[in-house]
């Protein structure tokens, strides 16, 4: 399968990329790692007139320590995140989620910012960014603005990034010492998540002090299980206590129905996956 014809630009700076996007109107697509976009182009689900490649913009790559947060450039690959010691130390949940994404070849090319801007509700980094309270830096011709995770995702493949803007970096508050687990329910290893639960937990002496839980593929965008988060505070990290708290995990969700499972099925497994994720996260 071969994509439809398009023009191609590989600008060296964010400014040049923004002017390339502005010149093409609403008919341009940005390519980051391309691991989701290229299948879309090959299957001709989309046929942009211009593809703007960000791979030559070095300033968009890498992980920077900014005191109480890590700032990750939008073009940082999954593999670079897995190779970064500071991410392991401060954002264990991100490591746990990223290591489940697709396969090694895809992780070598795929980027954090590309996946977040693509906003596939079955993607693994959206719920993770939401659980970690990430802030998204969006840059346009008039400068940058910052959008919190709960405003960034606006629907199926829809984000706060405008047609003439770029997602340039993602700021994650450090969760040093928090346990984390990404519980992913799939039929085969490199499939998209049927449902997944991103949990990060601050526990002391077996008591949960704080918990943050994101749900993947339980709606048209990543969701937070806030009622479970509240119910977990002050609980012992035991099977029974966590099961009780996780019972409301499907509350407020609107999961899709597809060949992998209908909405009712997804609502029935999400408390189970939430229990497993929280117990694993609380266990270290």
């Amino acid at each position, binding site marked *: *399968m*071969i*994509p*439809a*014809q*398009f*023009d*191609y630009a*590989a600008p060296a700076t964010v400014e040049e990329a923004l002017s390339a996007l502005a010149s093409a109107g609403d008919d341009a697509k940005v*390519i980051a790692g*391309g*691991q989701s976009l*290229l*299948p879309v*182009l*090959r*299957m001709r689900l989309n046929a942009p007139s211009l*593809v703007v*490649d960000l*791979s030559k913009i070095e300033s968009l790559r890498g992980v920077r320590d900014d005191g109480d947060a890590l700032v990750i450039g939008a073009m940082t690959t999954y*593999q670079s995140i897995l190779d970064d010691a500071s991410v392991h130390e401060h954002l264990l949940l991100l490591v746990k989620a990223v290591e489940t994404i*697709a*396969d*090694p*070849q*895809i992780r*070598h*090319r795929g980027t954090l910012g590309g996946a977040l801007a693509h906003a596939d509700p079955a993607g693994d980094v959206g719920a993770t960014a939401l659980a970690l309270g990430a802030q998204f830096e969006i840059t346009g011709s008039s400068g940058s603005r910052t959008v919190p995770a709960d405003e960034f995702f606006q629907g199926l493949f829809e984000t706060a990034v405008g047609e003439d803007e770029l997602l340039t970096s993602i700021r994650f508050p450090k969760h040093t010492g928090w346990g984390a687990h990404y519980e992913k329910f799939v039929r085969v*290893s*490199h499939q998209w998540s049927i449902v997944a639960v991103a949990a990060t937990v601050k526990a002391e002496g077996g008591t949960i002090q704080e918990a943050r839980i994101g749900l993947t593929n339980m709606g048209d965008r990543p969701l937070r299980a806030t009622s479970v988060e509240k119910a977990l505070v002050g609980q012992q990290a035991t099977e029974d206590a966590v099961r009780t708290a996780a019972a409301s995990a499907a509350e407020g969700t609107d999961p899709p129905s597809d060949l992998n499972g209908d909405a009712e099925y997804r609502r029935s497994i999400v408390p189970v996956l939430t229990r497993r994720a929280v117990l694993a996260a609380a266990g270290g």
Partner: protein
Amino acid sequence: MARISVKVDGASYSDDVEPRMLLVHYLRERLGKVGTVVGCDTSNCGACTVHLDGRSVKSCNVLAVQADGHEVTTIEGISSGEELHPVQEAFRECHALQCGYCTPGMIMQAIDLLNENPSPSEEGIRHGLEGNLCRCTGYHNIVKAVQKAAGSDLEGAQQ
């Protein structure tokens, strides 16, 4: 058309390509490197795996223009003359291929895996090859071949 300069299996090439041309088509149709095959064409099967700047990628999921200024290694570039690469040799010794279609991608991914971890566990090998499908389902011998190439104990692996 876009002008690209790439190094493939040690040789430098400059070509005009359509931006929509996939790397795998550039390798096969322009450079004649038909050792790299197209399997599923949907970025699932891994048969088209090559190395881009030393790391494995699925060449059906990379544009040729994205390889501009970079270095590609294919299955055709890993032996030294008549002498097979140790992973190729191990695949032959362990009968790690039946129809052989997945083999170029399996070998390129196995080399990447061993570059990252020279002595992987059996589970680590299976995990590391999760992006490569074998329709003959000959996975056991593929795993043995990677273990053999890693110099690990095959007696133990056969139990």
